[in-house]
């Protein structure tokens, strides 16, 4: 381990009775990085996070967080001074005001951030005097994040942080996480949303059945960056396909699809041909494999990744 590794997971194993939750996973997270843990339900994400939070002990293997064993009692209070944790579905005292709830948590830390500053950061300044029970789901999640960062953590754990958000709230939340990361906070994130991992994470690890099946940048995971691009467009049904300057990979009705590893050159050829032959190309799209495509392949497709739209 180097000093820059904020989190080290080395061959971690954990069983619950007959069920193997983790079967020897390894990865590390560097200082200032946003690292995503992806995987279907039961893949081992939450167990991993709970071990790193010091809430569970692994059966075998090693976990280190900020240089210490998170399960060690002798350093647990000091370690938690340096961690921020946003749990899934954790409630906050409903009858307190937003400011009181945050003040309460800030008081547990030796050097907390200013409460009003944190409320402004998460966009709840105007709700500071409202009761927690009057907040909407998205606002509650923002308060969760405020509780997670009020201790000025060096490392922030986010467990499925935007589940149930509408698209606007989700993008606002991403902006918030990016600003924390830019300020130097290391973030370890679990999520079902591939868009979220794509937008936020510098690196991701995909878990399946308690094992890491892939690790890397979201842009290059599963060879996304070197895979063939898919060019699709519509032509008039009367257009003679034999005049196309590039051979189509397939045609369905008037929709033509071309798979290529050199999309720039193919597009140039196509547009020159269309202009010269006075042919209209409608609905032109260029796509590479999405992170979701890669994820579904890696996880065996037994649980389709959840897209943002499916949850609205």
């Amino acid at each position, binding site marked *: 381990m180097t000093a820059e590794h904020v989190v080290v997971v080395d061959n971690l194993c954990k069983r619950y009775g007959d069920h193997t939750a983790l079967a020897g996973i390894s990865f590390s997270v560097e200082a200032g990085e946003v690292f995503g843990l992806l995987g279907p339900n039961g893949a081992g994400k939450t167990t991993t996070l709970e071990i790193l939070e010091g809430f569970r002990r692994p059966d075998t293997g090693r976990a280190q967080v900020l240089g*210490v064993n998170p399960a060690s009692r002798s350093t647990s209070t000091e370690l938690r001074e340096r961690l921020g944790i946003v749990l899934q579905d954790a409630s906050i005292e409903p009858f307190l005001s937003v400011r009181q709830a945050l003040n309460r948590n800030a008081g547990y830390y030796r050097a907390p951030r200013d409460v009003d500053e944190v409320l402004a950061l998460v966009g709840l300044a105007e709700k500071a005097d409202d009761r927690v029970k009057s907040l909407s789901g998205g606002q509650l999640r923002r308060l969760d994040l405020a509780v997670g960062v009020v201790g000025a953590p060096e490392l922030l754990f986010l467990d499925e942080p935007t589940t149930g958000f509408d698209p606007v709230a989700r993008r606002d939340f991403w902006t918030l996480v990016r600003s924390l990361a830019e300020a130097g906070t290391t973030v370890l994130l679990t999520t079902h949303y591939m868009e979220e991992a794509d937008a936020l994470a510098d690196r991701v690890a995909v878990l399946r059945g308690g094992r890491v099946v892939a690790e890397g940048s979201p842009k290059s995971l599963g060879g996304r960056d070197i895979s063939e691009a898919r060019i699709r467009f519509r032509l008039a049904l009367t257009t003679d396909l034999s005049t196309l300057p590039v051979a189509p990979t397939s045609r369905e009705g008037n929709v033509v699809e071309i798979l290529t590893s050199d999309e720039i050159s193919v597009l140039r050829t196509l547009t020159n041909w269309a202009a010269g032959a006075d042919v209209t190309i409608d609905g032109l799209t260029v796509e590479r494999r999405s992170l979701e495509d890669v994820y579904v392949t890696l996880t065996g497709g037994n649980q389709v990744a959840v897209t943002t739209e499916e949850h609205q």
Partner: protein
Amino acid sequence: MSADQSVSLQRGSPVNELTRDLRLIGRHVYYEQLSFWLNPIGAFFSVGFSVVFLTLLAIAGGTSKVTFLGGVPLIEYYVAGFSAYGVMSVCFSNLAITLVIRRENRQLMRLRLSPLPTWILVLATALNMAIISAVDIIVLLLVGALAFHVALPAQPFALIVVGLIGVACFSMMGVAASTAIPNQESAGPVVSLVFFVLVFLSGLYFPLAPGSGLLQISNWFPVRHMITAVFATFSNQPGIDAFPWQDILVMAVWGVICAVIAVGRFRWEPRRR
């Protein structure tokens, strides 16, 4: 960089640490008090309910006296009994239900993952229970004195001791009970049923005559002893011990047994995952 060096131990002198710990306790108690009193329904059912119950039974009982307790007015027995009831209601029922709800909605997990030391959480919770119980007892004593002319306890020091032992015993019972309740939906019904049966058996609503069958049963449980211990602090009647050591001993034993169960079975995380 060694493991221990990597964690910045920003600890001050022992005096500063003690000051910080005391501030943490005070702060936690303050926010627990806010949470409790800002929830009007919860506060009413924990505190106001005993006042309403006392008033109704006192009106129904009129000027009756309890012959086998030296002819004391029934209302005096009720004021003592409901003072005990208040402590039990707050520390057993309220605490057990609150713990189950907070465990299941992960509030306990959040606390566990914060830097708040567990011993401070436990101590602050006990102090919080003691404050609410004290408020309840004071309200009941005032209602008894002003509305029904019941004299204040003859042995206030003994009442404080009994109150503190009761808070400790029934809080431990509350924590232990919470470990046996699987979800927040069943917390209220289960705790209320157990509490009602224990209170009924223990003679809160009608004093139990010496030698009665119910007395033989209720003597095994701490509820009966809490009632008689509080009652004893009110009375200067001959034959009634003003410092009820036996009752206190029974409650202490129950407290220790429940503490062992609580420590062994307590969970911070929800059962439903």
